[in-house]
């Protein structure tokens, strides 16, 4: 099984979720994160005190899938999260050794 971590722009969340639903992804975990990357942050100015905010709001998706779904899922994300502008984000893929469904105790691929 694989873990797909995708960092995307917040306003793309609904599109991505829908696309993933459509191809049969059953579970996603979403976290609000702040990203530091090529895309530049903005400047805030409070009574003369200037703050450069390097970190931009991003959404992190964690999706664990069986190996056979991997490609389909990443493609779906790339398609929907892409706005062509800097800061669109990245996808990181790593290996997951085991998955357990807490409610039933099922393990492995069928627990995904």
């Amino acid at each position: 099984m694989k873990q797909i971590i995708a960092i995307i722009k917040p306003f793309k969340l609904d599109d991505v979720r829908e696309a993933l639903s459509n191809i049969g992804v059953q579970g996603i975990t979403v976290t609000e994160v702040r990203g530091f990357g090529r895309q530049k942050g903005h400047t805030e100015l409070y009574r003369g005190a200037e703050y450069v905010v390097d970190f931009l709001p991003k959404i992190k998706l964690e999706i664990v899938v069986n190996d056979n779904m991997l490609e389909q899922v990443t493609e779906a994300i790339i398609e929907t999260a892409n706005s062509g502008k800097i800061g669109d984000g990245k996808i990181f893929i790593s290996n997951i050794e085991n998955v357990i469904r807490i409610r039933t105790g099922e393990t492995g691929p069928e627990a995904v």
Partner: protein
Amino acid sequence: MKLKTSLYAFILALMPSIAAAEEAAKLDSGDTAWMITACALVLFMTIPGLSLFYAGMARSKNVLSIMMQCLTITGIATILWVIGVYSIAFGNGGDLNSVWGGLSDMFMGSLTAKDANNALPLVGTIPRSVHAMFQLTFAIITPALIIGAFAERMKFGAIVAFVSAWLVLVYGPVCHWVWAEGGFLYSDGVIDFAGGTVVHINAGIAGLIACIMVGKRKGFPTTKMPPHSLVLTCIGTGMLWVGWFGFNAGSALTAGHGAGMAMFTTQIAAATATITWVGIEWIFHKKPSALGAASGAIAGLVAITPACGNVGPMGALVIGFISAICCFLGATKLKQRFGYDDSLDAFGVHGIGGTVGAVLAGIFCAPALGGIGFGTGHEGIGSQLTAQIVGIVVTYAYSGVITFILLKIIDKVIGLRVSEEEETEGLDIAVHGEQGYNL
């Protein structure tokens, strides 16, 4: 000023203190005490009342833009009022007095001009300065109501330009028509005790035109745009409700029976509308909501505004009930039906509520229905209603058309809307360079 002749006679009869005052044109410290307080209450409605009510319904990335706009409008309206809008509204326009007050009282010299007895000028029993200030607070909240319609996407510069021009060209004249002696709707005996046409219809229709011209928010209506903090909206609702006593009971201009009844009818209409809106949601959606309660309260307050000093407790109850139904439909169905993006329901609540109230004021002022009598020159519901509808239509037409023209011009010159990118990022950071929350 809101003294319709018939109403005036009525009040005089009731209040020996005023009657006496009129004889000698004497300042009454009690009336003045109440009216100074009323000024504070009505300003409180805009800052922070309305800015909370609206800001809570916006998304968090635009919260400060709303609050900033309210503060800025407070500033602009005050300055313009002093320069000339007061004169347009309450001056004497000579030959043209039926349509505007002229520019003879620019910079408000009349406030400090002493009379033969070396006394400062009064309006009724209160200092002219207090009356001018009270009316200013109305000139502040009216454009502030409009911003709810085009929230979250309009250029700050365009708002400043629009509001400034609108105050001069729309608010000043309409106020004169309805409330200044000699104004043509005033002379027609239109009943608008505290601002159904001048404030709510006026702002509501301007908002409707503006939100259509500025266009929908990006993503509307498919993207979710839930209110970012209904807690703020509820706080704002409480403040608006309380401040509205200044608005409505203050419009009596004295501290007597008239003010007392205006306050009481205001309370009744607001309460009834709150419960009605909550009831509708409960029955049809199964979930009565805080936003529904808040919306109902404001709907009732808006609708009772033109009527509060002229109807009885039971009239207020009916007005509250009907307004909640109409505004509920306005804010939920009408908008969906026609697909415009009146973001915070400036038209859906204020336009519609104001209209409902202005019409019903013409009915429930009837003594037979517990009211205190018709406006000058009217002797039955039929003729009064006609006058009310004329008032409403004129305001819709005039405010709508001028708003349209103003926005067309501003669009050409500086553009109405922020860029897509700025809209996505949020006005707070993109336009104002700051964030609402750093928790």
